[in-house]
């Protein structure tokens, strides 16, 4: 069960006038405001219509391997896009939310910018030989019973990495499923940081 909290208790919706040509998220949604570390972060798109990316996300041709095109679906894990992710990010702000946004990239990538509220859990740390594996799984709420892991109490995890050409999220997802995590406890934001950046969405 994906713990989606759709009730909008504590949610204020306000309206104002928008000049045509503004860069909105959808025709009805300009931005969302979320809280991270007790600070409000406005997630919106860059308003300058002339803005272009200059970062490494402008690259079209990275060497494959390692940077190969990823499948749309990883097993039965649901793949989501930006609007679904934004909805989940909003839901995650609720008191009884049981969701986690996970940036599966190694630290050098993460430190160049990530999606607000995302937590960095590099895919390498979920590997069999990771000395932190048990600690991480326990923190996530998994229980070890007779050498098997039970993921019933683990929050729903939205996992992403750099985008369609990056295997880091895929590896994390496959590893979690391999360890026994139910596929419906995982969501895959395949567009990752490249899609997020190309849409000019707020980066932390």
């Amino acid at each position, binding site marked *: 069960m994906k713990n989606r909290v759709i009730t909008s208790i504590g949610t204020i919706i306000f309206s104002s006038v928008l000049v045509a040509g503004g860069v909105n998220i959808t025709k009805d949604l300009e931005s969302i405001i979320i809280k991270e570390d007790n600070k409000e972060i406005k997630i919106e798109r860059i308003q300058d219509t002339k803005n272009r990316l200059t970062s490494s996300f402008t690259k079209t041709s990275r060497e494959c391997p390692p940077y190969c095109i990823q499948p749309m679906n990883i097993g039965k894990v649901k793949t989501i896009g930006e609007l679904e992710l934004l909805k989940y990010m909003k839901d995650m702000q609720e008191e009884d939310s049981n969701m986690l946004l996970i940036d599966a990239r190694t630290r050098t990538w993460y430190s160049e910018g990530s999606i607000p509220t995302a937590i960095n859990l590099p895919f390498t740390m979920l590997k069999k030989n990771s000395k932190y594996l048990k600690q991480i799984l326990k923190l996530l709420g998994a229980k070890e019973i007779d050498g098997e892991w039970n993921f019933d109490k683990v929050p729903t995890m939205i996992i992403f990495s750099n985008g369609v050409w990056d*295997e880091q999220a895929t590896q994390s997802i496959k590893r979690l499923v391999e360890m026994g995590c139910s596929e419906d406890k995982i969501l895959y934001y395949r567009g990752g940081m490249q899609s997020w950046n190309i849409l000019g969405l707020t980066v932390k």
Partner: protein
Amino acid sequence: MLIIRKVAILLLVAGLSSSSANSNLMSGLTDIVDQAEETKTEETKVLNNAFKQRMISQRMARDTLLISTEFKSSLYQKNLKEDADAFNSKFENLINSKKEIEMVVKKLPIFQEKIDKFKKTWLQFHENIEKLNKNGKDKEASNYILNNNIEILEDIDFIFSSFLKFYQSSDKLENSMTHIKTMLFTQVGKPRMYITKAVKERLLIKENINKKENQKNLEDTIQKMDKLMKALKDGDKELELHGTEDRKMLEELAVSQKLWEEVKTIINKKSIGKEELELLIKKNNEFIEAHTKVVKLTRSSNDN
């Protein structure tokens, strides 16, 4: 003018912030990842700035020449001592990283042999630096440094390059991602060494020391430097470099390139007077400083 509804969703207080359980989970995970990163940083500390050693080996030789020709001897004696101490402490860091060395030796058995050999070579080299520091006119010491600095350069290059290539993570994907960077890391700092080597070779020619051989070496160094500077910008298949389109990187590379052109102009002059010599050393040092920014930028960038 089209007027549309602007909707912003603001999540407020009580119901707004993530549950405390979730906060604990997030801070717990952050702590573990930070801890893992710290260990990683510790493990790779040895490599940080390690490639600067190549440049230092050439700067020590350059400064030895300046000392023996009595060009600002006391200043360069001080610099030489600082460089030798820095070189020594970084090398000690490496040889004390037993666990990491063992990992490399497993994949490259000759590595241990190279380290042992280098320990001896460096010990003698260091002794001669000490001698030159006590007496700037000690010809035997300066000759030793001038005759052996290339061996030091080649050994240290082999040691650190091997370390970077063979000291790997146990994860295949991570290694594969890192490999692309490895070639860049091994090459990006080299211009600091090449420029210092070129200046040293020009000084040797100026002092009539093995003039013919050093002229040939100088031409070779200039050619390699030109090729590498271009490769860092535009890429080069032979050097396995992809080049860059990163604006910041291109800006910093342009600063380095300009300084290199200035150094080259002086180097190519038929004779070099005292003022030009001073300018040459100044530009050489400015290049090292400027190009270190390129190295740092490369380490933190994923534009490759």
